[in-house]
């Protein structure tokens, strides 16, 4: 057993420790934000989730690039799994963002919140990614098409962000803003703990899911070989 084989459990352990610590500290230790009050504490779960989702999409695009580069089919499953993780965490961003909007502004959805709108676009985009994978027969061509689409996605993230900022010129002025309050050192510390924990959790899930998908694929190939 090499260290490489134990990466999943190691990340799971890190995720467990850091997330428990971060969430306990977020509830009982950090000072309450002067402007937003108690509700600001959603920040410690919402923003790390968003960062993790971006990281997953970027990782998926990197693996997609490697696939096109080397034509090695093992990158296909890695890219797919990373995008899958990104979508799971993206849904969490949407849900926690909706809850935050409800507390702060009394509505479940606000088009004035850039990150939330961006995640809605990304959610649509990556759902189409799954549609694409489902409607093409498995094989090297499916892998390459998915890889190309995943690359489009990672380019779409900054472009869409820019588009959302620009659209505020004509859709409506930004009424709500969350920037501004300076983070105290203790707040930043808990935020970092939570971010590391969430990314470690995503990595652990990624490893488990990847080995599950590999196992599935191997079984399928075996069955085809025997029948």
């Amino acid at each position: 057993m090499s260290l490489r084989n134990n990466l999943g459990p190691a990340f799971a352990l890190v995720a467990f420790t850091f997330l428990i610590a971060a969430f306990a500290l977020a509830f009982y230790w950090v000072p309450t934000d002067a402007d937003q009050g108690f509700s600001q504490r959603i920040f410690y779960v919402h923003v790390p989730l968003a960062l993790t989702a971006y990281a997953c999409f970027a990782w998926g695009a990197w693996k997609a690039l490697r696939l096109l580069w080397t034509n090695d089919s093992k990158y296909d499953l890695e890219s797919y799994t990373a995008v899958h993780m990104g979508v799971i965490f993206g849904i969490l961003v949407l849900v926690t963002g909706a809850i935050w909007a409800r507390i702060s502004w009394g509505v479940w959805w606000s088009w004035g919140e850039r990150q939330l709108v961006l995640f809605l676009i990304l959610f649509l985009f990556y759902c189409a990614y799954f549609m694409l994978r489902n409607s093409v027969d498995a094989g090297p061509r499916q892998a390459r098409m998915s890889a190309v689409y995943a690359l489009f996605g990672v380019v779409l993230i900054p472009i869409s962000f820019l588009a959302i900022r620009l659209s505020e010129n004509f859709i409506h002025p930004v009424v709500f803003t969350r920037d501004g309050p300076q983070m105290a050192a203790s707040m930043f510390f808990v935020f970092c703990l939570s971010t590391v924990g969430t990314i470690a959790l995503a990595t652990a899930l990624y490893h488990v899911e990847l080995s599950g998908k590999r196992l599935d694929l191997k079984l399928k190939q075996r069955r085809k070989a025997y029948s």
Partner: protein
Amino acid sequence: MTTDEAYVTAAFLVFLAVVLAWLVIYAFKMRRLEREVEDMAAADPEPGQNPDVPKVVPAGEADANAESASRAPEPVS
């Protein structure tokens, strides 16, 4: 508990719930994979007879061979 606190708790619980839901889905998937392996083992009771696994394997290398065979599954006619 104030409304604020309830919403914040809800946000953290949603996180937990999604991870747990993932776990449940994965448990089902694992169960399915396990059953498939069992089916295959039942259909092919003597893995030593497979053409792609050498018949006589020195005791220490048995695991390594099985692993490499499953890693690169050549089509077996």
